[in-house]
């Protein structure tokens, strides 16, 4: 008998099922993995940003207690360098990727030069201190623009002027220049987007174990993409058959992009374990190493030329960006400033003439790759600053400039002219209007005017940010055209055991997002089985279909859709079986409330558990039906999804100190349909806070010779509890038609929207003093200096 309707879980703020282990200390992160005979690897790193390695003497280190081996670049020069799997499309890329250990030359402070393997971690640190390296220091360069100027130090022979690629999109530059010259209002500005350190609170780590009996390798790693790490390690670096490697991501303590990439240690610990006859070898970076060497994000320096009419309509936009990629190319580095940034610079606006040119550049810094919001964060910052510059130049209110230029609901699907995929749908003005209403925009503008009139020390600033992003990465065919070297679909397997318990295997994986909860909610509703009966498995390549992992806000939109489709296949098979058992025509069977029955007679129906049992034992199946209820789907999305919204930040800036206090933060987001609002809000809180950190506090600083001056959490300021406000969130819901869930994705939206909202607010607060732009982070000192220079 099929029971009455169980409670629907999708859309409910269900408490996370992964939390019990994490609140009791029972989570197992990489540093918690315990293996017998574990040996420890520590890394000797270059103190120079650019130098030739003249000699390395490790004799003393080799003789120290507990030392199992010392290895340098010479010892492993037969091993391939790491691959670069996403080049800027359609243009030549001068590719230089890092070797596992530097061979002749180092190109950044922190470049790995040698490793020691010891019995205990403390011994490893001792042994490092006993290795002598003779370097010949070479001139270094920091700053992407500077690195391309004549006479700048050169990093790699094949890349003259340190240029990795030059790439552009949109109309011809000449055509756009002509439109600019013909515009009533013209504004030129230099806009920066500083380099950031992702700073997941768990640093990176890896453990490699070789099994001499089977010739198989197991890699445990802080990974956002275990299957990809296996593929790259096997086929591109070690030259080991792919099936001989198993990659496991244990609990992962935050990633934000930084754990997508293949790093030197991952293949290295496997190779070292093999050298040690199968003893497992572990590497766990400390925070300083994480800051120096785990890939950074952003790092743009752009020239912008804007044309507009006197009443605020944007007529032309030209953006020329220097993108720092660091000392070498990280795994997908060139794709971020090209596809993910260049093609999204138009934001939510119709801009009739637009050209974006990117120069990817090597400099002697950490590698720069995708970091939360990747590319789209830089694009939304760019365009939202542009819109405010237009408002500033024309005297038209920033909200009005946005309205005037918005893509309208009837314009979808909308091609922004930059060669990307069309935006699916949206109502940008609705989100803007709701945010203005929530914040009480007109009253705030009145108060701002009054304070200015009175010369108040606390100046009020209101910052708007209307954004659209491309996520749910991504359609494989398009990504292939864009230079991505693989597919970007996602897999899911759904299996119902004889006992009626459900196991879902997904190629996406969590590092804080709560996949186990969200996916269980989805499956519980679609199958009508109890939440507790569902297990979501992920993060292990063994016995699972290939999956591309979690980044680009793709887990629900792409991974969730694969699950949804597998459930549908399982349900379909269950219905066929029910028709057979109930001796009814298949078209008379309905599936509802966890079972299948002949229309109108649920009391004589079969529950999914009964059907799973029958399918499993296989005593009485329709002709040709295979036993068990199980299905696998490889879902390749037809397009990106395009979340959008408007965020508004209200700040007070102190005229005497330049200090900013965030007073309010209002966000209206449209992420399409929501499975778990608790988790969606959490993603927004976290994303907004990271973006706010960029606007006000964070930024990597390198000295002229390439030493990092912000090398610890003492100097690199991520947001603390006392620096964040309470956020006021609301949603509009415009389901996307790109996937059957109607889900757009939410992992990056907060970070994409908030940086311009906060920066625009601070600049708005001081705009009456003649300031129209400042470089982030907008620290009190920087704001104070800017005010001092303008009075």
């Amino acid at each position, binding site marked *: 008998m099929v029971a009455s309707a169980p409670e629907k879980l999708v859309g409910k703020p269900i408490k996370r099922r992964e939390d019990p282990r994490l609140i009791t200390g029972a989570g197992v992160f990489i540093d918690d993995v315990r293996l017998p005979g574990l040996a420890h690897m520590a890394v000797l790193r270059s103190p120079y940003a650019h130098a030739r390695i003249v000699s390395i003497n490790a004799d003393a280190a080799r003789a120290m207690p507990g030392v199992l081996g010392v290895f340098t670049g010479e010892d492993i020069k037969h091993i391939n360098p790491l691959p670069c799997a996403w080049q800027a499309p359609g243009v030549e890329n001068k590719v230089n990727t890092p070797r596992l250990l530097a061979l002749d030359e180092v190109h950044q402070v922190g470049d790995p030069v040698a490793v020691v393997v010891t019995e205990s971690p403390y011994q490893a640190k001792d042994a490092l201190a006993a290795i002598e390296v003779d370097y010949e220091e070479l001139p270094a360069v920091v700053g992407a623009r500077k690195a391309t100027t004549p006479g700048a130090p050169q990093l790699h022979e094949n890349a003259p002027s340190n240029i990795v690629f030059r790439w552009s999109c949109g109309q011809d530059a000449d055509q756009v220049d002509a439109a600019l010259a013909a515009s009533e209002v013209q504004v030129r500005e230099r806009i920066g987007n500083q380099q950031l350190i992702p700073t997941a609170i768990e640093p990176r780590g890896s453990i490699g174990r070789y099994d001499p009996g089977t010739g198989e390798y197991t890699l445990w790693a802080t990974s956002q993409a275990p299957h990809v790490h296996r593929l790259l390690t096997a086929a591109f670096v070690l030259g080991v058959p792919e099936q001989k490697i198993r990659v496991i991501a244990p609990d992962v303590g*935050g990633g934000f992009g930084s754990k997508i990439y293949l790093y030197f240690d991952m293949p290295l610990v496997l190779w070292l374990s093999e050298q040690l006859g199968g003893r497992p070898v572990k590497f766990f970076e400390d925070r300083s190493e994480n800051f120096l060497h785990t890939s950074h994000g952003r790092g743009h320096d752009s020239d912008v030329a804007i044309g507009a009419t006197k009443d605020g309509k944007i007529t032309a936009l030209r953006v020329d960006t220097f993108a720092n990629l660091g000392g070498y190319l990280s795994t997908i580095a060139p794709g971020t400033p090209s596809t993910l940034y260049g093609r999204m610079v138009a934001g939510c606006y119709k801009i009739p003439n637009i050209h974006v040119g990117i120069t990817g550049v090597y400099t002697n810094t950490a590698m720069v790759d995708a970091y939360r919001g990747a590319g789209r964060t830089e694009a939304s910052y760019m365009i939202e600053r542009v819109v405010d510059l237009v408002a500033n130049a024309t005297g038209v209110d920033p909200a009005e400039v946005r309205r005037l230029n918005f893509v309208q609901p009837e314009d979808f699907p909308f091609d922004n002219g930059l060669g990307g995929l069309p935006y699916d749908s949206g109502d940008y003005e609705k989100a803007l209007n709701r945010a203005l209403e929530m914040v009480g925009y007109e009253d705030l503008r009145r108060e701002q005017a009054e304070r200015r009139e009175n010369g108040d020390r606390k100046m009020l600033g209101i910052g708007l940010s209307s954004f659209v992003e491309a996520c749910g990465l991504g359609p494989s065919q398009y990504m292939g055209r864009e230079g991505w070297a693989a597919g970007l679909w996602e897999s899911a397997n759904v299996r119902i055991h004889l006992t009626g318990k459900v196991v879902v295997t997904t190629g996406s994986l969590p590092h804080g997002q709560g996949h186990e909860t969200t996916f269980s909610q989805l499956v519980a509703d679609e199958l009508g089985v109890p939440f507790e009966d569902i297990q979501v498995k992920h993060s292990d390549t063994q016995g699972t279909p290939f999956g591309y992992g979690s980044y680009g806000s793709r887990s629900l939109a792409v991974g969730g859709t694969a699950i949804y489709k597998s459930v549908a296949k399982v349900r379909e098979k269950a219905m066929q079986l029910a028709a057979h058992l109930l001796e009814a025509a298949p078209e008379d069977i309905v599936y509802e409330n966890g079972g299948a029955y002949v229309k109108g007679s649920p009391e004589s129906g079969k529950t999914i558990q009964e059907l799973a049992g029958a399918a499993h034992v296989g005593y009485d199946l329709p002709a040709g039906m295979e036993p068990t209820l199980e299905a696998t789907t490889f879902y390749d999305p037809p397009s990106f999804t395009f979340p959008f919204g408007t965020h508004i930040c209200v700040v007070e800036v102190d005229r005497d100190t330049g200090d900013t206090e965030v007073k309010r933060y209002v966000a209206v987001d449209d992420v399409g349909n929501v499975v778990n609002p608790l988790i969606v809000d959490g993603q927004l809180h976290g994303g907004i806070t990271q973006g706010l950190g960029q606007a006000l506090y964070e930024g990597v600083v390198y000295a002229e010779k390439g030493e990092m001056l912000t090398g610890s959490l003492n100097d690199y300021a991520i947001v603390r509890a006392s620096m964040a406000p309470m956020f006021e969130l609301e949603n509009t819901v415009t389901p996307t038609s790109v996937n059957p869930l109607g889900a757009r994705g939410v992992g990056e939206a907060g970070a994409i929207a908030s940086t311009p909202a906060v920066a625009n607010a601070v600049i708005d607060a001081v705009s009456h003093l003649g300031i129209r732009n400042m470089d982030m982070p907008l620290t009190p000192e920087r704001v104070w200096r800017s005010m001092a220079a303008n009075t």
Partner: protein
Amino acid sequence: MAEAVATRIPVKMTVNGTEYAAEVEPRLLLVHFLRDNLGLTGTHIGCDTSQCGACVVYLNGESIKSCTVLAVQADGGEVMTIEGLAKDGEYDPVQQGFWEMHGLQCGYCTPGMIMSTHSLLKRNPNPSETEIRHALEGNLCRCTGYQNIVKAVQYAAEQMSGGSAPTS
């Protein structure tokens, strides 16, 4: 240098109610003693400059950063880690608060965050939002934006004071 490493010093301490004795290098950090010698891996390590708070535990009733204390300094002391917080299979109200209010995402900062919160509520059973945010300055979270952590603390405060509404 090689010779200096050999020295070992005996330590004894009570951790989560169980007594332990070991011989350790004088330089061994308490966090490594807890994690590597005792296998209590709930206490995490997120930095090397005493900034992140992932390693917070109780030592003799005070919350401390266990990456900043040597194991030998804890000799004779009483330590409580995240593993010792739940009693008889019941979560502590602070643990419950983090679960109820979605005060964690990746969970890496969480043990330290919970221990610091526990210590805050011992000192100040009814903290304001501002007091909560200041008390947690030494605990970094990169995932949550802190809003739900504040709510988790308020939830715990309310539970511990027998249900009276916390001030905000």
